[in-house]
């Protein structure tokens, strides 16, 4: 039997997550490089409902892993159901998106099988028959190529945005769907999740913003936020921040950009004193133009910046605000 790659897509709240298609694209790329067969799995109370959508993609087969006990999501049920599937089907490589849900269960699943997860990968390499997974380390300052040092199954998760979901190839004809009933014994599930909710209405929708001025740790003190606010006001931009700023209460949580906040794609993103930790980058790397101001020339934000200004934001920003005002007044 040829080696198999299994992509486990994610469905939440009755929808396939967008990142699922990115992981399919990753799976198709690895299949093309290795010659391995690509299959996919959907897991949930009503997984069959999503299977056809996945089966339209270029995959050899789709498993719909079902049990009423998979709804609502719990790590106990998901790990149990997937362990059964993987033990029966024995894929070589299991790929998932690096979502909060996957982070919650995949280390448990792998450990239950005595295996490891290379998590939060941004790409792969296939060198002399060896598969390497690239991931960021030290908050994105360095990258590492990591290999598996164990028997299959190997587990890897891909970071949001690592591959393009719209590049997932369709199949010539729909892939066959196999429904698998997961057998989850009573007592396996220990957590009792309540309804998912959104904290007090999000007052600020940054996803539609054309220009965003975002501040990070470099702003140092709450009172300095004003410096960024004045620039934002002058530009007619929305003010946003990286997580530590909101954690400190210097700006409300609904102005937070990143994996735990909003994901934005403005025309211009001005990052002031933001080092560019992965958790922030995933929320703004889709911006059309990124301008970064940071005194640390090695800050990872400069890896993705279109315009780099290496300097102290307290020196750079006030004259910039004045210049913007001047130009606006003149137009």
């Amino acid at each position, binding site marked *: 039997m040829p080696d198999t790659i299994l992509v486990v897509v994610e469905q939440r709240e009755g929808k396939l997550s967008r990142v699922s298609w990115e992981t399919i694209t990753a799976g198709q790329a690895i299949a093309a490089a290795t010659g391995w067969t690509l299959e996919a799995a959907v897991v949930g109370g009503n997984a069959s409902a999503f299977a056809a959508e996945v089966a339209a993609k270029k995959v050899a087969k789709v498993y719909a892993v079902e049990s009423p006990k998979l709804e609502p999501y719990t*790590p106990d049920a998901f790990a149990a159901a997937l362990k059964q599937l993987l033990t029966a089907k024995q894929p070589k490589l299991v790929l998932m998106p690096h979502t909060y849900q996957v982070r919650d269960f995949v280390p448990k699943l792998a450990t239950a099988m005595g295996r490891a997860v290379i998590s939060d990968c941004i790409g792969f390499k296939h060198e002399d028959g060896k598969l390497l997974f690239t991931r960021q380390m030290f908050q994105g*300052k360095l990258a*590492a190529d990591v*290999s*598996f040092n*164990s028997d299959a199954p190997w587990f890897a998760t891909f970071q949001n945005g690592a591959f393009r979901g719209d590049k997932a190839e369709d199949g010539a004809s729909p892939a066959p769907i196999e429904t698998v009933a997961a057998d989850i014994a009573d007592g396996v599930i220990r957590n009792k999740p309540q309804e998912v909710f959104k904290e007090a209405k999000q007052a600020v929708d940054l996803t539609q913003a054309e220009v965003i001025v975002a501040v990070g740790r470099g702003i140092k003190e709450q009172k300095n936020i004003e410096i960024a606010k004045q620039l934002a006001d002058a530009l007619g931009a929305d003010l946003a921040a990286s997580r530590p700023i909101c*954690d400190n209460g210097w700006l409300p949580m609904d102005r937070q950009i990143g994996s735990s906040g909003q994901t934005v794609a403005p025309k211009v993103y001005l990052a002031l004193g933001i080092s560019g930790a992965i958790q922030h980058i995933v929320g703004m790397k889709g911006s059309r133009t990124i301008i970064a101001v940071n005194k640390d020339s090695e800050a990872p934000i400069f890896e993705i910046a279109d315009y780099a200004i290496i300097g102290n934001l307290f020196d750079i920003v*006030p004259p910039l605000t004045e*210049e913007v005002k001047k130009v606006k007044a003149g137009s």
Partner: protein
Amino acid sequence: MKILVCMKQVPQKDAPLKLNETAAWIREDVSYEVNEPDAFALEEALRQREKHKGEVVVITSGPARSQQVLREALAKGADRAIHLEDNAFVGLDAFNTANAFAAAIKDEQFDLIFTGLQSDDYGYAQTGVILAELLGWPHATIIMQIEKNETGIRVKRELEAGFFQFVDMPLPAVLTIQSGINKLRYATLIGIKQAKNKPIRKVALAEVQSAIGENLQKIERLYVPQKTKKTEHIEGSPAEIAKKLVDKLRNELRVL
């Protein structure tokens, strides 16, 4: 409530990193600090102890330098510490680190184990969940609130895109703590003084060696990431930079 907090020493956020001669790890002569989410995990444990009595124990693994993390935690109010002390612990993957921790605490009886949600160095975000599985305990990740109730605890999980969820779970359990769950305290002078008399149990590599195997994942090489974008540097005095940037905003990016 008896709570264990797993903590890690990581390079300081703005520390310039250089590769060592293996090109698979960094040169270790940099400044270190407490992994940020771990500091929030410790704070939460101290707050839970203030509410429900009990004990807060902190654990870390790494060479002698990493004892600093434990010292700081003891100064902030942790009762005692466990130090798996050996340089070899730095290179362990999450699976082996969790195994080493599980072996080091096998004679302890905790109600809760906290970890930060991920580390600023490896960033695997796995050790806490793996530890739960090794102990056979339930877990919940990315926690923003913890309330004790009659049957166990109710925790608030952070989901993506501003969503949250409460989860009821029995004890003992492992929780991975999100940054910002609370406000961090500073160590007081008296706390720093008292910390000197608090016990740190040292665990040698040999004591947990049987629980550790070969790493299941191997860093083949570490490198400065290749740039994917062409970056234009804007240089000059602040006034010149302002002029150049406004010109770009107006004439190229057309947002002014």
